[in-house]
């Protein structure tokens, strides 16, 4: 069980975060580069000492600025797998994996047994005698993972481990890692900037923006009510900025409008005016081959740019539309084949005014959710 609460100066802003991760749980840490994710990870690993705060792991005090207490990295039961693999180039894969066991003076027989088991677990037993430069990127990452888990860490930190791999390797190893993490008993913090990874790994997602936690929740929570433009953009919902123009009498009842550079949207009633950001969840968008005549107030016409099946099994498909403004819709696989959707096809995208969510800047709760 990891309990963290730290605050530290980070360049031009303050890092301030609080999170808890239970044993066996995977928490996904998401944020732009420079938002403080790697710093937070370094604090957890024991490589960086924050200014204020407390880190407790399984009841053991790893850091406390009050006492003060600080457990250095080599005394923490933490495993780290980073984006740049950091395998020791002068050691074979097996020696790399055995490194930590040697460092803690594990007897030779036990060392050999555990090393072999870890290599086997990651499916790289045959590569044991190879040096890192003789391994592919994916294989290197497996060695790095084996090296970390062979020590049975209480906390596993994964810092964008697959971002340097090509898409195919990434997909393959991601699935394996998912399975592996399910079996491990340690708490895991998984940092990523890939929405797909965040969605597939994280039961719980924590979003870091400029050093502050802007949102914590499950993926459903985040997709339902994104708290900041960054979160919305990250999850691939349609985000727009525009000027709110006051309610006008138009048709039935009062409606407000948002003026975007590319056009206008009708949204549900709300007071006030000024610059605002709005979100249209892809699921709210309906696609049709002819202009719809129903109650949807917002209709846009455009050609399909791309069709991307959503992980993990492609039941839902993301459709990028070259409309003004550009939109991303989410439809079922059946819908795609029913309408014979393909890149280049002109379609009508529509959504109700009620389907538009007004988003506050970070920290503000959304309105009209």
């Amino acid at each position, binding site marked *: 069980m990891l309990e963290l609460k730290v605050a530290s100066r980070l360049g031009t802003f303050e890092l301030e975060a609080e999170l808890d991760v239970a044993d066996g749980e995977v928490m996904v840490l998401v944020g732009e580069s420079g938002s403080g994710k790697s710093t937070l990870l370094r604090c957890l*690993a*024991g*490589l960086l000492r924050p200014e204020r705060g407390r880190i407790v792991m399984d009841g053991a005090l790893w850091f406390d600025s009050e006492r003060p207490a600080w457990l*250095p*990295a*080599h*005394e*923490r039961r*933490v*495993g*780290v797998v*980073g984006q*740049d693999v*950091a395998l*020791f*180039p*002068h050691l074979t894969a097996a020696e790399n994996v055995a*490194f*930590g066991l*040697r*460092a*803690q003076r594990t007897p030779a027989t036990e060392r050999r047994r555990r090393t072999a088991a870890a290599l086997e677990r990651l499916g790289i037993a045959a590569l044991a005698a190879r*040096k890192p*430069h*003789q391994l592919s990127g994916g294989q290197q990452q497996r060695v790095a993972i084996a*090296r*970390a888990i062979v*020590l049975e860490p209480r906390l596993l930190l994964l810092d964008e481990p697959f971002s340097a791999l090509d898409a195919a390797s990434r997909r393959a190893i991601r699935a394996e890692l998912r399975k592996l993490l399910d079996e491990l008993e340690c708490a895991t913090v998984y940092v990523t900037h890939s929405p797909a990874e965040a969605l597939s790994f994280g039961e719980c997602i924590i979003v870091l923006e400029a050093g502050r936690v802007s949102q914590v929740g499950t993926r459903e929570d985040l997709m339902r009510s994104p708290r900041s433009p960054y979160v919305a953009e990250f999850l691939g919902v349609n985000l727009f900025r525009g000027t709110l123009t006051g309610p006008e009498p138009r048709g039935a009842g009062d409606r407000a409008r948002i003026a975007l550079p590319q056009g206008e949207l009708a949204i549900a009633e709300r007071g006030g005016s000024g610059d605002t950001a709005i979100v249209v969840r892809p699921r709210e968008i309906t696609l049709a081959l002819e202009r719809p005549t129903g109650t949807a107030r917002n209709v846009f016409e455009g050609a399909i740019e791309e069709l991307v099946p959503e992980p993990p099994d492609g039941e839902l498909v993301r459709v990028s539309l070259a409309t003004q403004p550009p939109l991303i819709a989410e439809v079922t696989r059946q819908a795609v084949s029913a309408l014979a959707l393909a890149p280049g096809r002109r379609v009508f995208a529509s959504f109700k005014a009620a389907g538009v969510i007004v988003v506050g800047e970070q920290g503000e709760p959304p309105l009209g959710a």
Partner: protein
Amino acid sequence: MTEAAIRSPRPSLARFGVLAASTLLLGFLALPFIGLLLRVSPGEVLARLARPVVIDALRLSFITSVAATAVVVVLGIPVAWLLATREFPGKRVVEVLVDLPMVLPPTVAGFALLMAFGRAGLGGRALAALGISLPFTTLGVVVAQVFMAVPFMVGPARASFASLDPKLLDAAATLRARETFTFFHVALPLAMPGLLAGVAMSGARSLGEFGATITFAGNLPGTTQTMPLAVYVALQSDLDAAVALSVLLLVMAFGLLLGLRSAPAGSFWGRRDARAQSR
């Protein structure tokens, strides 16, 4: 203008300049050595080798430079590691101190050593209490050599340690390795090419040490007259002996530098050259 003329002018002049500079410099460096080698035949050199004065000088040079290099390595590597991995108050001073013998004229260094470790010096009196006297002794020769050779070890060693990927050192820490373990199992093996270069340079410097030796330790065949001193003495009365000894020194230094520089770089960790590898 033809296409060739349009394409070539700038690069050609630069290339010519580089070629000219290289030829000039290499010629300048090689000529004295070639001149020396042409002066005497291998047979003559071997004949001189049998003389007791030469054997004494050879033995003395070998013993003292090996001892001095060993001291420099054992004391210099930890200092290099500290300089490469830590900040601490007074670090600037330490850096200057370590580099100082390199910029000091050797005779001045020898004189300074005399002031410190001579009979009347602070260090000298402390050593005398332990029954150790340095001037006029072989130990004094080693001390003079150590003093002059230190920068040649610490410099390359520090650069080598500093160029280690800090991520590897961090990784070692997260793998339960204390700093000593990381030092011996990660830093040392990976920094080895640079360290060996440092050993070669400081060894060669010890071998060629003259000014500080003759000023601090004196000049006595069999006790303090190393090869460079023997050459100096021979130059004044027996030129052929001087040439033979110089050739011998030259061959030893050449062998030392060549041997220690060419072996590791290619074979370590399957990388041909650290720079050639794309990261």
